[in-house]
């Protein structure tokens, strides 16, 4: 897809999303809000999976931290979104910095396991906080206030706030992956040793990206806490991390916008199938398995944002396979 058609496609998507409240049913507006929030997390996962070659299975942990920070501050009387949301992002990024510094010492399969384990650690941390309701979590009295004249309790207003943030995060992410920083990041994905040999501190680049992705997930968590007016540990269960990854693959990794479509597929699938069967997760599992077994590449590769048209190389499957590296050539 050429640059111009891609821009038109993005604008059409935004216009379509902006029209959802016109359907006149608050149910659809809330559903679209959820898609936008999940889409934001899925996009942050894609920054790591599709662009940096880091297969994280722990993004739900950061999503949960953002939500809990928002919940705690809100119940303590802090309502300004301009204070609470940056705080949620900051705390999440700090945790991501510590976890990333440890997890990035590993690579490949080990990295998957370690991120999964650290997310589980975050899960157990909040689970054990009895003053915060333990497993059940707690409710939030009112939504954060962006501007005094916006009634955030109105679902349509809140939806537009989320949508604007999603667009901003998407623009930021697209610019990021196409910047010089993004070029180094993609270089690391394709051949980390070569990037290191040129003289870039690959570890720091990966850590920076890990923190940025964590911060985006934290912001999404803050929005989710506002959306449902409730936070609980189920937000950061390991299945939730798996769901985010599934959204990426249902959309297309390495495209940033694809994962948002994946979030839409996930949310709509959940709504439709859970209406018909209480065992919707079985069918969702089947959907993932079939998607992977039947289609080898990405579904919407044409959305690919970083690879100029006509130059699609090993994108998709090849990029995540870590070639055997000689011992001793570590990047730090």
């Amino acid at each position: 897809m050429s640059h111009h058609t891609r821009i038109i496609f993005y604008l059409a998507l935004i216009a379509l999303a902006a029209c959802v409240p016109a359907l006149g049913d608050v149910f659809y507006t809330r559903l679209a809000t959820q898609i936008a929030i999940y889409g934001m997390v899925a996009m942050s996962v894609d920054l790591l999976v599709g662009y940096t070659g880091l297969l994280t299975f722990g993004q739900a942990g950061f999503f949960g931290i953002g939500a809990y920070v928002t919940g705690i501050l809100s119940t303590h009387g802090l309502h300004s979104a301009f204070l609470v949301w940056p705080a949620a992002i900051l705390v999440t990024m700090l945790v991501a910095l510590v976890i990333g510094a440890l997890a990035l010492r590993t690579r490949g399969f080990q990295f998957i396991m370690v991120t999964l384990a650290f997310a589980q650690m975050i899960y157990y941390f909040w689970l054990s906080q009895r003053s915060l309701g333990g497993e059940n979590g707690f409710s939030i009295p009112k939504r954060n206030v962006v501007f005094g004249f916006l009634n955030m309790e109105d679902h349509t207003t809140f939806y537009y706030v989320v949508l604007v943030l999603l667009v901003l995060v998407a623009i930021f992410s697209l610019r990021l992956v196409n910047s010089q920083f993004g070029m180094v990041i993609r270089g690391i994905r394709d051949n980390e040793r070569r990037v290191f040999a040129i003289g870039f501190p690959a570890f720091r680049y990966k850590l920076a990206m890990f923190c940025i992705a964590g911060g985006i997930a934290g912001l999404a968590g803050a929005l989710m806490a506002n959306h449902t007016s409730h936070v609980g540990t189920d937000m950061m269960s390991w299945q939730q991390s798996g769901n985010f990854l599934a959204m990426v693959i249902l959309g297309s990794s390495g495209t940033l916008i694809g994962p948002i479509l994946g979030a839409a597929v996930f949310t709509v699938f959940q709504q439709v199938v859970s209406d018909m069967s209480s065992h919707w997760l079985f069918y969702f599992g089947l959907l993932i398995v079939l998607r992977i077994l039947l289609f080898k590449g990405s579904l919407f590769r044409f959305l690919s944002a970083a690879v100029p048209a006509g130059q699609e190389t090993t994108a998709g499957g090849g990029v995540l396979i870590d070639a055997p590296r000689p011992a001793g050539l570590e990047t730090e």
Partner: protein
Amino acid sequence: MSFQLVVEQLFNGIQLGMMLFLMAVGVTLVFGIMRVINLAHGSMFMLGGYFLAEASTHTHWTVLAFLEATVAIGLIGVVVELVVLRPLYGRSHLDQVLATFGLTLMFNEAVTMIWGREPLFLNVPDALDGSITILPGVQYPIYRLAITAFSIVIGGLLYLLINHTRVGALIRAGSDKREIVQALGVNIGLLYTLVFALGAILAAFAGMLMGPLLSVESGIGDPVLIMTLVVVVIGGMGSIRGALAGALIVGVFDTLSRVLLPMLFGGDASAALVGMAVYILMAAVLLVSRQGIFGAARG
């Protein structure tokens, strides 16, 4: 804090460790030989519990029920390997991880379709009921001792299988250089299926043994799986010795931290630390060694 309590908890820790070892063998073998992370491994633990509960309703002989469940899980392992895993070899990590994640979701829901959402309860076999005195003043349940003993026997058999049989030689060779094993004319596909079924059976053993101590319900394998991944990270990927060492370390560390930490800290702080203990241990091991304890030899 009495000496008796420490001894009792040490036994509990070893028992948990041996159960994690049974789980970790499958993860580490499947990784070492097929280069796949199998997130559906926790489902085999869960299915072990369900199959034993189901078989126990048909027969009064625990051993027979145990064998029936073992055969059933072995068949499931073969089918899963042939249908889902085989097309994944050589695919990206993302595909492998997500496909086995999808399988986990399917298994977790399938058991609720068949057995309902209410947990099932397994009884401790009559012969193993009760407790004995292991030290003056320390009563210990026979069943827990039996779990440990059984796991040690299985571990011993595994050692014989891997070090003193032809299949074992192929497994060892396969985890070092599978291309060469294949080039020598070995039916590597059959080896993959065998290894996967073996791992599934060992995980199911863990589930069957733990069944009477837990309630058998959907999703019980998931937290066990994640702890197993911690074991494999600590012990070193692809190494069975590492799996044993990691499992015992994690088992004892987790059990003791559950007893000791509440004595040091109170309330939420200790509860938080107890839940996080094994992950902090994992972080500490990663700080010292990237490859875990026994993983350095492997790429």
